[in-house]
């Protein structure tokens, strides 16, 4: 028979009651998995929203008639599309009042050549006038993007030779950007002069992205930063009036961000509510189990008292047992939640249809530590009632009841 010390006693007690320990562990594991998983989800969604807010730097986007929904989908989800104006929209828009800055972009959706080539969004931008993408790209690639080169989003499959194949043509990749958690991760960026070349290559493979007569002039959207004192809606009205075009589509990135924020708040709210309800239920169950087991263990506690254990020792024993359960359950719960949250993060982001960006290692480690503390504290809270009963002055009488 191995020698059992007072320090090992809580562990031995748990070991000798495997079914009770397993049942309690399941509860603590579920609580900590839910806490860690829910908190991680909320943090990742918030990181995604922050990232999206930084990337949607325009106040207003002018797009062709009936393409507003496509443009919104392009900003918020990974749906790629091709649309363009056939007139000189940039100069028509520039006549309107209330525009502080404007730039044009061209959107082309590439072909899905085969199973291992994804459809990507090609975004043509003008580095000289761009105020949306350029500041972000500059922070990661400080050289001039040359004609024929591309900058790849984080999810783009770049070959080992540093190229990407679009319309059966290899484009050299000048840089690959960091993950943003937005649709931009599935995009490649080229300057406007590269667009006619891409159109030419697409025509060569028999799927012209844009009719060749518009290849040099095609513009998908005019992005506008409004001047101080104007609202985006006022500027949209001014553009309609100045251009004489009634059917223009207007997208308000600020509104998209606000809608996303509302959806996100709702999800985070539900997660928090579920977590709170689940936690209360878990603590109640743990309280009940600890109380009933303390009742059943009167003989055991009486024996320990006879052997010289103080009331403090008994309380310490109960608290250590519960803390140990919390710690083991916490580790298992966090490990199980990690098995879902980290490997499946891309799938989760896609299914939620919201910007979803995995937070960094320090935050993740901090949350893991918080999850462990939460699990240990939950276990200790559940043992409070039992510990209180054992610490009362009449404990000795209560223990004698069990003799």
């Amino acid at each position: 028979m191995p020698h059992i010390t007072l320090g090992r006693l809580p562990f031995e007690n748990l070991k000798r009651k495997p079914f009770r320990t397993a049942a309690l562990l399941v509860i603590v594991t579920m609580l900590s998995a839910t806490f860690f998983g829910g908190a991680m989800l909320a943090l990742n969604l918030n990181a995604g929203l922050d990232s999206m807010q930084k990337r949607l730097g325009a106040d207003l986007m002018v797009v062709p008639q009936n393409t507003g929904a496509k443009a919104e989908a392009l900003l918020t989800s990974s749906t790629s599309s091709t649309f363009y104006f056939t007139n000189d929209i940039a100069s028509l828009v520039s006549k309107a009042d209330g525009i502080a800055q404007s730039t044009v972009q061209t959107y082309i959706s590439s072909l899905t050549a085969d199973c291992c080539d994804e459809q990507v969004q090609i975004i043509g931008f003008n580095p000289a006038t761009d105020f949306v993408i350029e500041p972000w790209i500059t922070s990661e690639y400080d050289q001039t993007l040359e004609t024929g080169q591309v900058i790849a989003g984080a999810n783009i499959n770049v070959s080992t030779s540093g190229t990407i194949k679009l319309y059966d043509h290899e484009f050299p990749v000048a840089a690959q950007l960091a993950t943003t958690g937005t649709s931009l991760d599935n995009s490649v960026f080229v300057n406007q002069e590269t667009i006619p070349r891409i159109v030419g290559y697409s025509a060569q493979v028999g799927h012209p992205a844009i009719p060749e007569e518009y290849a040099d002039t095609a513009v998908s959207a005019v992005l506008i930063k409004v001047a101080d004192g104007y609202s985006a809606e006022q500027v949209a009205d001014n553009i309609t009036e100045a251009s004489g075009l009634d059917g223009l589509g207007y997208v308000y990135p600020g509104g998209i961000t606000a809608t996303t924020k509302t959806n996100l708040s709702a999800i985070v709210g539900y997660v928090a509510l579920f977590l709170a309800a689940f936690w209360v239920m878990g603590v109640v169950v743990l309280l009940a189990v600890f109380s009933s087991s303390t009742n059943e263990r009167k003989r055991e506690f009486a024996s320990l008292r006879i052997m010289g254990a103080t009331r403090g020792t008994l309380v310490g024993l109960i608290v250590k047992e519960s803390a140990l359960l919390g710690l083991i359950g916490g580790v298992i719960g966090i490990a199980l939640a990690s098995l879902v949250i980290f490997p499946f993060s891309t799938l989760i982001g896609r299914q939620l249809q919201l910007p979803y960006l995995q937070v960094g290692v320090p935050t993740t480690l901090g949350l893991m530590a918080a999850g462990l503390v939460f699990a240990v504290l939950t276990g200790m809270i559940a043992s409070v009632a039992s510990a209180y009963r054992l610490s009362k002055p009449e404990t000795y009488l209560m223990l004698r009841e069990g003799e």
Partner: protein
Amino acid sequence: MKNKLIASLPAIILGALTAIAPQTFAHACAGHDVPGACHYSALAASGVGVVIALLGVAALFVGTRERIGLNIAVVINALLVLAIPTVLIGVCQGAMMHCRMVMLPTLMVLGALAIVFAAIALVMDAKSTNAAATRVR
């Protein structure tokens, strides 16, 4: 009996899931003209999954020492499940491709769980073997 179940049931369940997942919900990318890496990874993982499940079944009918050997085999096969889509064969490169988004993480999780459960079973069987040896002495 407890050790026997711990040594066999997880291997049977996780092995069966490893065999079934790449052919069903965690399938390889569709629309191959020429089968790609993900297709071969799915086939290989299914094969290894069947082996893990059979090792689990065998563990139901053998003694403690043999179970230790079978669980070492489960660990090695589970390492193969991890290696097939990452090192040995691979999957499609695109981050949003189904095989990378679903099949790869599914196999990673199943492989990791198979290793953890087999390791637990190994430790438990090794302990009971040692205890039996001590009693004989």
